[in-house]
């Protein structure tokens, strides 16, 4: 046993991995969701912009989670 401070080690951030997986599933599902959204009474325009919004938000989500894919631990 030594008292020397150990080098920080980068480990995979589990939350980021889960975040990436959720964003990917949401993005893929949104591409097929428009007809379903319309059956709930939404107009094409509303359903379409909702779908587009999901794509954009999930892309930002992926970017965020990839930039935080690793965390440093001592």
């Amino acid at each position: 046993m030594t008292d020397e401070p150990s080098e920080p080690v980068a480990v995979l951030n589990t939350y980021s991995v889960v975040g990436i997986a959720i964003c990917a599933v949401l993005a893929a599902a949104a591409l097929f969701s428009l007809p379903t959204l319309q059956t709930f009474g939404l107009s094409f325009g509303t359903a379409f912009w909702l779908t587009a919004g999901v794509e954009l938000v999930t892309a930002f989500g992926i970017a965020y989670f990839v930039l935080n894919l690793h965390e440093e631990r001592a």
Partner: protein
Amino acid sequence: MEAAILQAGFDLLGDGRPETLWLGIGTLFMLMGTFYFLIKGWGVTDEEAREYYAITILVPGIASAAYLSMFFGIGLTEVEVAGRGMLDIYYARYADWLFTTPLLLLDLALLAKVDRVTIGTLIGVDALMIVTGLVGALSETMLARYTWWLISTISMIVVLYFLATSLRSAAKQRSEEVQSTFNTLTVLTLVLWTAYPILWIIGTEGAGVVGLGVETLAFMVLDVSAKVGFGLILLRSRAILGDTEAPEPSAAATAD
């Protein structure tokens, strides 16, 4: 002859859409790219390489879902345009671009190692480019469509200018391997992305010089090149390896 060119394709589903041939081929290419990158990246331990793989696998992955939705007609709608009648609009294409183009730019930004503010700005302008293109695609007068196309094209020029200047100068601070890969990918992006607004303006959503079959084929070739081709160049390069593995023979090099 002319009619044959304008209707290029084959109606695979029997629903009167010859472009389904190109959409089906596009789906297959995107799926092949996704699985190839997935297999290649399986077991990669390098921190930086993991980030590139995560992004680069998702790009053709979501694109294959978009192509599948267009293939089955889910990602298709009709817009009544004054003076042009009813136009078929594959809206899933735009939804796909909203997801994939920011991630392709993120790959380039990670290569150049720019700060998060620069990444945010780049992705923000890119989102503006796609959203304005989308508004143009759904507009009901040709004047509105061309106006939105112009705004979208200007946004694209800003994105490409950013790539060729700010990101390129940041990439110059990195290793020769990174610089070389970054330059190759930037040229690929500049050339391919420039073709999109040209194709849009001569295609069915713009002036209607080329038919839906040719337009779908051309978009498919551009999409596969800009996503799978981009990923192949990036992931086969040693530039994606961080400091932890850089001195060792790379996994990519041995796999090749």
